[in-house]
């Protein structure tokens, strides 16, 4: 970065553009936040609400009283962590060999993986399989069937293919095997793509509800998105209010509108996953790889 001007006209122009863009992108987020704190009269009126007349936490009370939401939170976090870990491990294990152009039968194996991306038997055989494996109503059912993701494998493989072969070759000379090379050389060199895929996988596991819906029967193992889904698809509040009562709690729904509750649910459900990003972000900073290259 030596000798680069700290500031320029182009950059200034770009920054203004990004600021406008950020406002556009923040708008729905802000609107949802305001809605979640609005009183029902305001919530049920059309038109932009940029500031609530009064900040009312009722909707949050209602959602937090819905079923065992804290348990669902914990389950989702556990699922996201373990599921992401599994995906990363399997993705790396498959992507590294497939990145070797001289691997015999490489294309055949690639196609074996690709086919799985396009054909699936549908939910009934999936369910019977999970049932016969004895995974039904266990947490494994949420992370094992999705542990191998062909899309991620191809992305990572592609990234591996752009890594300079020279470093690998010299490690070979030093007597390292493929496994140590993967761990000691490829892994540190691939932090950005691993971070990206970890983020994708985490977002996937965070948002996934269908498997939870069909594989999990025990309420104590349910995930956050199941509750979100209940709220978003409920036609009116009375339906979810019933469900809240089933959960044995729930704030008074007297002063709430469905739109409040939905907004609050969305805010609650995206909170943690949105906060993950800044932590992953450091791997996207340009020049991060320079140290590892020399190391």
């Amino acid at each position, binding site marked *: 970065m030596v000798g680069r001007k700290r500031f320029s006209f182009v950059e200034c122009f770009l920054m203004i553009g990004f600021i406008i863009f950020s406002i556009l992108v923040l708008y729905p987020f802000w609107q949802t936040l305001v809605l979640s704190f609005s009183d029902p009269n305001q919530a049920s009126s059309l038109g932009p609400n940029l500031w609530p007349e009064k900040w009312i936490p009722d909707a949050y009370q209602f959602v937090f009283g819905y079923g065992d939401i804290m348990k669902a939170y914990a389950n989702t976090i556990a699922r996201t962590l373990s599921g992401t870990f599994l995906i990363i491990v399997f993705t790396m294990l498959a992507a590294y060999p497939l990145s070797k152009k001289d691997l015999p039968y490489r294309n055949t194996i690639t196609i074996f993986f690709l086919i*799985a991306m396009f054909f699936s038997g549908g939910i009934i055989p999936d369910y019977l399989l999970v049932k016969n494996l004895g995974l039904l109503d266990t947490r494994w059912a949420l992370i094992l069937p999705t542990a191998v993701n062909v899309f991620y494998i191809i992305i990572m493989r592609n990234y591996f293919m752009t890594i300079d072969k020279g470093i690998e070759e010299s490690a070979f000379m030093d007597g390292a095997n493929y496994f140590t090379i993967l761990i000691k050389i490829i892994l540190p060199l691939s932090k950005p793509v691993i971070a990206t895929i970890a983020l994708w996988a985490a977002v996937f596991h965070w948002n996934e509800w269908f498997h939870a819906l069909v594989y999990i029967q025990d309420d104590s193992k349910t995930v956050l998105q199941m509750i979100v889904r209940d709220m978003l698809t409920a036609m009116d509040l009375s339906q979810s209010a019933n469900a809240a009562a089933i959960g044995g709690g729930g704030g008074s729904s007297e002063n709430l509108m469905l739109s409040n509750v939905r907004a609050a649910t969305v805010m609650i459900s995206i909170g943690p996953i949105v906060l993950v990003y800044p932590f992953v972000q450091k791997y996207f900073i340009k020049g991060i790889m320079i140290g590892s290259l020399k190391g």
Partner: protein
Amino acid sequence: MVTEAMTVKETTIEIKAPKKPIWQQMKKMKLLYVMLLLPAVMLFIFNYLPMYGVLIAFKNFSPGLGIWGSPWNNFEHFTRLFEDFMFIRALKNTLIISLLKIVIAFPAPIIFALLLNEIRNQKFLKVTQSISYLPHFMSWIILSAMIIEVFSPQRGIVNFIITAFHGNPINFLSSKVFFIPVLIITDIWKEIGYGAIIYLASIASVDPSQYEAAEMDGAGRFKKMIHITLPSIMPMVIILFILRLGGVLNAGFDQILNLYNPLVYEVADIIDTYVYRSGLEQFQFDYATAVGLFKNIIGIIFILGANAIIRRKSEHGIW
């Protein structure tokens, strides 16, 4: 770019070198096969074993009889698809919307990443990135209500601006002309930041010495972007592009379902919304499976085609 070229050279040399017997090569790389074993077995169990389920597409499925026990039906679900002119229209709309999205919305995150890369202020960069990724987490149910408001002919900001310039308010979401542009713009708006992440990751791995060398040669900002940054993310762009083509018959179900209305069916009714509206998804597993199979086969054809074309021009195909 330097490293790229080197790799390419190496592989060509290897290919030209006298071939070792395959088993010898396999023996040398046996550890790699061991690595592959675990993911491959998992894939076999969880993807291949249940695959017999596609048979449903060729049967009159009855849950009581099971997948094997249900009677065959002579491709009835497929003939039905093509006898239904509504389905044909939905297929056409799906292709149009999807291809427009590929042409316009697919490059957006790339441009976004390239431009973001030009910002030197680290704090600004980080904040912008973090914000841009937010809308990805909002569901279309929530977003659609806002979009309808923004484009409302009576209260919407867009029409407010139009009338301020003495134009007539436009009912965007009921207009056959404007509906698709709205779809594409809102799609970009929602996904651009999230989509840019992978490109930012690719850019992060570019060797900074390349920039320094280019600067020495007197290359400006724009030149560096075009000649260093863009080529470095090109392999990723190509692979994502091919994979995106595989989903060519997915034109954005949730988005359209929450935004459309009968006045724009003519341009906006896609396969997924049509099948959904027919209540078929609800009750007819067999028909829905047939539609899914059809969509995937078209997707595969697109992938094969794109891969073949790209292989001919460059090194970066899927296989």
